[in-house]
């Protein structure tokens, strides 16, 4: 098993947090993981992106030219990275902040997740990233959900520990949506 995901959105959407979380969960599950964040002057407010690879083998390049899965949280990310996805790949996008009108490839499966709306229902729009990650895990079962929840305890900083239950709920909501609508 070897899965790679490219995650992108605005700085502040928690892109690096879910990338980190997925990698941490994989390591808890005794898998290899790499998390390679884009680290640039555009860090705050600008674009945020990272590549995550989860594998039961040694991971060579942490850089992926054509990702098999894109987790794209806004229109900019969708416009820029959808065309780079590998043929046969999967694109999960945040339909609250982007539309797929320009996504016309028939070799890439598409899943729309109204992540901001779902997150707002839970009580905090900032949980949109967790909704997206939940949907990803439903489509690509690379790590078990309980490991991801376990990893939350490590990744969420001490001062935000009270938000862990809401994060779990957001993961579940995303997962449920992804399970129902696994794209063909």
């Amino acid at each position, binding site marked *: 098993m070897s899965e790679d995901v490219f995650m992108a959105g605005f700085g502040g959407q928690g892109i690096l947090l879910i990338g*980190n979380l997925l*990698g*941490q969960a*994989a*390591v808890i599950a*005794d*898998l*290899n*993981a*790499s*998390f*390679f*964040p884009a*680290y*640039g*002057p555009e860090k705050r407010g600008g674009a945020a992106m990272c590549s995550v690879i989860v594998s039961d083998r040694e*991971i*060579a*390049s*942490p*850089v*992926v*030219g*054509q990702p098999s899965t894109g987790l794209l949280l806004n229109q900019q990310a969708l416009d820029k990275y959808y065309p780079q996805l590998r043929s046969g790949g999967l694109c999960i996008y945040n339909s609250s902040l982007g539309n797929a009108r320009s996504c016309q490839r028939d070799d890439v499966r598409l899943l729309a997740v109204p992540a901001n709306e779902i997150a707002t229902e839970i009580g905090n729009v900032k949980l949109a990233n967790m909704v997206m990650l939940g949907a990803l895990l439903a489509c690509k079962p690379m790590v078990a959900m309980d490991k991801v929840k376990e990893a939350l305890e*490590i990744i969420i900083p001490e001062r935000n520990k009270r938000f862990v239950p809401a994060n779990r709920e957001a993961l579940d909501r995303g997962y449920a949506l992804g399970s129902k609508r696994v794209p063909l």
Partner: protein
Amino acid sequence: MSNRLFVKGNEAVCMGAIAAGCRHYFGYPITPQNEIPEFMSRELPGAGGVFLQAESEVAAINMVLGASAAGARVMTSSSGPGISLKAEGISFMAGSELPAVIVNMMRGGPGLGGIDASQADYFQAVKGCGHGGYRLIVLAPYSVQELYDLAMTAFDLADRYLLPVMILGDAMIGQMKESLIPRSYDPPTDLPEKSWAVTGKQGRAQGNTVKSLYLADGALEAHNWKLHGRYQQIQQQQVRCETLGLEDAELLITAFGSAARIAKTAVEMARQSGLKVGMIRPITLFPFPEKIYRQATERCRRILCVELNNGQMVEDVRLSVDRQAEVRFYGRPGGTGSMPTPEELFKQLQKHYKD
């Protein structure tokens, strides 16, 4: 449950250093290595150590010089521009035969350059960044695990050969997180005693002097021959290198550090498509694995050197193969958006395999 951790490269190098008994760190902030001083400031006091943020890179390396002269296992870290500032102190430490570990998480240059990954400081690290003609042992980890493991190795090598050891990483392996299995440190039993360290005479008949000035007739030459002999010993004893598929390779790719990570995937892609491609990855840049290149070229006559710069290590590859093989180069100097992909390197392999 394994003891597998998920750790950032910049933190792994600190964990390895602390495990190896490093209790003193002096440094100055610069991107992309800030997690190193931040980690040390958090962890060293609790471990009975000292973290000090110096007023400059110049001061930091001289604090390292002092702590090393006092007998401690000591580390500093920086990125290109800061290493330039440390060059003075590094030369003095080399001349004074002082061990220390210096981490360079390379960023693009010249000048202020950029903060993304680059391997543009190969010459600076390998050819002696300061004045006077000295050598550092240069280790080039390509993973978070290797950053951890080689930090331990670096302290042992520094204490064995009495010189600063540089760990040459870059923004990619410094900033990325990976699985890490923290091994326990197994100290070599044959490291020389630091009887030269300054402690106060403490009843010794003679005071200890740590210095690099040699003014008497022939004294500096003798000192340099001594250092030279040590460098030769290092070349004989400490070459570290990973090789892949040398048995049947028709084309070799060679790269170090981050570039080697990307190249490794390109080699897998090439093998899957039936191309007999092998790989040489130097882990020590000094000593350079000259013999391994020479031996490999007895059957494979073409080497593609890949670097995140416009061609630095390739010069040492050419010297090593001594015209017995054709050495080609593909490089991308660092900068935002300039990281080569495995797909890109695979195309290069296809191209150079054919003609």
